[in-house]
């Protein structure tokens, strides 16, 4: 087969510059001495110092990390069970409904998900007194719900690829279905669980719209604080924060890619 043509290469280059130029500018200007974000005033790390002295940002980052950790864990449980049921179980009555509900959050505009969940929480509070008030708990439930949709995409594709004969062999040898699941299926799909968990974790850390709807006083997540800051204009400490996040993510992805490569070579 012929390689890609020059036209494709040029278009690809333009596309990748478009994707990366803003990210690179964030990193570069986070080391800028000048307060004017777009004028270069010399190298400085003062915005990082300022960032770590800002109690509001640190507090919000801690809240966000806790929410992301718990909601990603919940999301992976719901996502795994939903994927297993959809891929492995023969027809059951609510199959079409479940399949619709697990994919729909992927494309639903965030404002609609946020509004509908908030109205549900308010209605439930009036009806049964739970959840009383809104805050971390309601954000966790909201994030677990849309995180499970993303987790299910990753896990379903792994379950489809997985060799059925191993599970069948265990069942033929008399293992109970639950034991087969915990002993055989779960270890085999573990990498997918890991990437699904990371995906839900990142999405939760990143979400502004849904959290703004379902949060209450006292539970401001990191994106909510960033949004209120950047709405007033550019601020260099946000650049510093962005650089830290980009650094962690790139490192994580590079490590994951190396791990996967090594796995392929050994396998």
């Amino acid at each position, binding site marked *: 087969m012929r390689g890609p043509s020059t036209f494709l290469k040029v278009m690809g280059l333009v596309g990748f510059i478009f994707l*990366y130029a803003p990210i690179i500018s964030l990193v570069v200007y986070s080391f800028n001495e000048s307060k004017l974000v*777009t004028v270069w005033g010399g190298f400085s790390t003062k915005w990082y110092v300022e960032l770590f002295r800002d109690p509001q940002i640190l507090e919000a980052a801690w809240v966000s990390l806790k929410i992301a950790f718990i909601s990603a864990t919940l999301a992976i449980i719901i*996502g795994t069970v939903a994927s297993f049921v959809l891929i492995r179980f023969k027809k059951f009555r609510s199959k079409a409904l479940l399949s619709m509900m697990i994919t729909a959050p992927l494309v639903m505009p965030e404002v609609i998900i946020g509004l509908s969940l908030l109205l549900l929480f308010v209605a439930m509070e009036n009806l049964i007194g739970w959840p009383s008030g809104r805050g971390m708990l309601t954000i966790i439930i909201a994030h677990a719900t849309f995180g499970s949709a993303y987790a299910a995409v990753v896990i379903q594709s792994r379950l489809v690829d997985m060799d059925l004969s191993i599970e069948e062999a265990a069942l033929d040898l008399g293992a109970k279905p639950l034991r087969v699941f915990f002993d055989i299926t779960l270890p085999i799909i573990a990498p997918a669980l890991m990437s699904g968990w990371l995906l839900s974790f990142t999405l939760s850390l990143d979400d502004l719209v849904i959290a703004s709807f379902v949060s209450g006083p006292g539970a401001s997540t990191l994106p909510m604080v960033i949004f209120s800051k950047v709405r007033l204009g550019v601020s260099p400490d946000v650049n510093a924060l962005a650089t830290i996040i980009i650094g962690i993510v790139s490192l994580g992805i590079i490590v994951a890619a190396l791990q996967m490569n090594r796995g392929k070579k050994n396998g």
Partner: protein
Amino acid sequence: MNRAPDIESKLPAGQFIGRILNRFGFRGRGLVIAIPTLWLLVFFLIPFLVVAKISLSEAAIARPPYLPIWEWSDGFLSFSFNFGNYMFLFEDPLYLSAYMESVKIAGVATIIALLLGYPMAYLIARSAPNTRNLLLMLVILPFWTSFLLRVYAWIGFLKSNGIINNFLMSMGVIDEPFVMLQTDFAVYVGIVYTYLPFMILPLYANLVKLDPSYLEAASDLGARPIVSFFTVTLPLSMSGIIAGCMLVFIPAVGEFVVPALLGGPDTLMIGSILWNEFFSNRDWPIASAVAIVMLFVLVVPIMLLRRAQAAEQEAAS
């Protein structure tokens, strides 16, 4: 094999859950189905019914700020549906033009994303396997970094004294800065930028499966590359195109962050209207009606997406 007996003891969790299920007389299967189904029913589907209900109620200064639509009085259940919120949406030109504007902006942004994303997806699919994985990773990486921060980065690019204007002025191309921030142009840039990976990934998944022998056959029969692209590649990738376009279009219609940060006061998008009705005006019934009408606008695109995804799955198996 001699380790088989202690697998039982290694699995306390599985055993424990199993024992509880048996005690309550559950056939395991039903319960396993029930866990995700109930969760999603309560926290995804029922909320839409609540929105529908509140869109039919009347706003009030109360906690929560709306009146109930049913009431028990003298042993009778009386309903009072209020369609006024929907009437209001269709009478006030603000809402109608915001819906049209959102569909227009999302539509144009989708086409731009397709024109930019298709060649990128095609390039990745035609590259050698090693380059392919690297390029794919480069497409996915921005998706993992904060979406809010990436939109914020464009403020520094598009401002009057921003990077683009500074560059053009120092080159002497322009004397006065272009006004780009707080215009529809900035909103298009922001939407294309944030949703480009959603366009590239399904297109790539489709194009990488394309059998090169079709193209060879076309070229053997004398078709020029451009002709075989339009007669072979493009039609075969149609379900990938539809899937990618809908994955961009549907969330873009309800987009809030991009118009809030990059758009100006004239940028009317329905996501921002809903946000303002809810947070600034505290009119929950109107916000609910706005959401319900938005869902109706999105029904056809969502059905198109499901059909395209089903076609893709069929092709894969």
